[in-house]
């Protein structure tokens, strides 16, 4: 047969394997088509869209305050971050000055949200690699955060916790001491997770050198957030373009050295510690005052367009809003989702690795399909 003519007995064909969209380890409805040569991944093709709900189009038929509810459902693991990014963009368009107290409370909520999101990331990443207990420990701490949020705004997952011009309500009495107590608990527990993973030989073997990407390549492909910082690029929107109260609260950003999965793990752990530091400082330095600026009942931004970005737990989340000045809905709203941009790097990251590493790499980029597909 002609096909057999030029091949030795040991030549193998490329195998095409489909992973997802229903798969325990793809963190949502993600489909990855892998081309394998034996065990090595030759190429990966990412197929998304299974969770597309037309959020951006829906915003054109909602008024500006209702859109906050839609932003909840983008990154459903870190709703408050998207809430914050959206309301700040509208406030930028309308040139609203948010009172200081509101900015501090927003910072507290955003950092608590960062902790919650990183806990989910850590739990699911560890569970995919086999350390199933870490998942339950992380969720146990996340329950405490969800309780705090529930006390504040009444919801556990989709918070709708920010308003254009400030916050819907002031913090409940007794809430702030609870936040501080939570930080103490989380500090201890973080040390526990570290003993299980950070110096564990199996963990090191599964994450060191896996999915490495240099800083230059990361910038070229559009990575953002902890994935970018893991490759040594010190870019953090909270430092570069401060919003909320980040210009008044000192904190450090974590930067990795090698850009592999282990470094991204360390970066996110350090971010969790810094989040607790920010929360403590914000609670201690919380100014008095109103939590809502004077905004008109019916929000109608002037004609114009603007873009504003925040540092969500997953990376840089940005909102582009175009308003025509007349209607109560945006003319166009575009979300710049960090997970979508980070997911672009997946084929590059998995090339040359083994099949079992694909799971680890998907975990380390930390994506949420709600954001990717919108």
């Amino acid at each position: 047969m002609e096909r057999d003519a030029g091949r030795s007995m040991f030549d193998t064909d490329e195998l095409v394997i489909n992973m997802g969209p229903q798969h325990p380890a793809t963190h949502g409805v993600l489909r990855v088509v892998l081309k394998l040569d034996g065990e090595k991944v030759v190429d990966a093709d990412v197929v998304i869209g299974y969770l597309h709900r037309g959020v951006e189009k829906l915003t054109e038929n909602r008024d500006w305050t209702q859109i906050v509810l839609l932003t909840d459902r983008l990154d459903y693991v870190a709703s408050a971050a998207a809430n914050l990014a959206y309301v700040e963009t509208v406030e930028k368009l309308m040139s609203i000055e948010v009172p200081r107290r509101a900015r501090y409370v927003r910072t507290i909520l955003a950092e608590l949200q960062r902790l919650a999101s990183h806990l989910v990331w850590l739990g699911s990443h560890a569970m995919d690699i086999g350390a199933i207990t870490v998942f339950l420990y992380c969720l146990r701490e996340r329950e405490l955060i969800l309780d705090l949020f529930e006390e504040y705004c009444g919801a556990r997952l989709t918070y709708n916790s920010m308003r254009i011009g400030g916050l819907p309500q002031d913090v409940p009495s007794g809430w702030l001491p609870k936040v501080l107590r939570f930080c103490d608990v989380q500090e201890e527990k973080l040390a526990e997770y570290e003993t299980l993973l950070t110096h564990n030989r199996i963990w090191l073997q599964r994450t060191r050198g896996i999915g490495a990407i240099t800083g230059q390549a990361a910038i070229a492909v559009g990575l953002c957030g902890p994935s970018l910082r893991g490759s040594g690029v010190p870019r953090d929107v909270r430092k570069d373009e401060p919003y909320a109260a980040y210009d008044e609260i000192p904190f450090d950003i974590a930067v990795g050295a090698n850009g592999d999965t282990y470094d991204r793990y360390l970066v996110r752990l350090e971010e969790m510690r810094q989040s607790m530091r920010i929360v403590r400082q914000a609670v201690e330095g919380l100014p008095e005052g109103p939590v809502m600026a004077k905004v008109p009942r019916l929000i109608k931004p002037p004609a114009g367009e603007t873009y504003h970005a925040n540092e969500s737990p997953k990376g840089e989340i940005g909102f582009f809003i175009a308003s025509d000045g007349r209607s109560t809905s945006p003319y166009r709203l575009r979300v710049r989702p960090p997970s979508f941009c980070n997911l672009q790097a997946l084929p590059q990251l998995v090339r040359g690795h083994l099949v079992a590493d694909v799971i680890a790499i998907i975990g380390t980029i930390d994506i949420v399909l709600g954001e990717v597909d919108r």
Partner: protein
Amino acid sequence: MIDLIVLPLIKIVFVLTGVLITVMYLVLLERKVQAWVQARLGPMRVGPHGVLQPIADVVKLFVKEDVTPVRAEKWVFTLAPIIVLVPSLIAFAVIPFGPEVNLFGRPVPLYITDLNVGLLYIVSVAAIGVYGIILGGWSSNSKYPLLGSLRSSAQLISYELAVTLTFVSVILAAGSLSMVQIVEAQHANGVWFAFVQPVALFIYGVGALAETNRNPFDLPEAESELVAGFHTEYSGMRFALFFLAEYTNMIVVSAVATTLFFGGWLRPFPNVEWLSFLGLVPAWIWFTLKTFALLYVFLWIRATLPRYRYDQLMQLGWKWLIPLAIANIVVTAAVKVILGS
């Protein structure tokens, strides 16, 4: 006549029943222990504190719909789980639960038989068990279970080598292949072989985890991995047999470790006189306690460690454990020659 046929038959019935019940409750124990490690409670609804959960599981597996893939080989598909389960059960034929005791006026040894090649019998039985896994994957007539089963069996065969090599060093220390003799040797030496052969114990422990496809070596059957395990297409009773076989293997491996390294049925410090009150506890209870302690270690490790990638697993077995086991044999033999015993 009685000694030749009736007594062994009675013992076989006892052992089989005991093993099957232990396996069922081992499943529950695993769920409970994992739950407690993970700060939750585990099964609580069926019976007080979930004690009747295994019965519910068995009933569920019995009444589940029997799904056979269309182009699967009917005979081999049914045969595969049987081939996995039977060797695990017959391995109990040589496991000594206790010494000879006097029951109803006649001396009855608390083991079904004492083969003079007892330890090798267990190795041979494990070798047969590999077929069930290969055939299970192949007969499902689907590419992913086949790959999963070939991987799993390659893992089993590699670690079987390392484990058999550790057996050699234990045999060197004990001077016999018979399981009963090995326990007696530990009694004579007054020290458990765990202290005489710590390296062998370590290699055996790692090998045992790999042989039973347990964490951290459970990649071929982990749910979050890409290539599905060999029992993907199995449901209902056939799946139950695979499941039973895995837990029975765990018990066999722990029982063998107890016999070889932890003194079998001997009470702690068997040669120390002032501790002889410990002898009030029957020998088979000591055996059971030790076996359960080792099973607990299995469960504990599953709750704690991440999982190895397949190539790392194979590297560990071939590049580290086998050379270490061979070195251990050489050192043991040299020490034996030097000590002249």
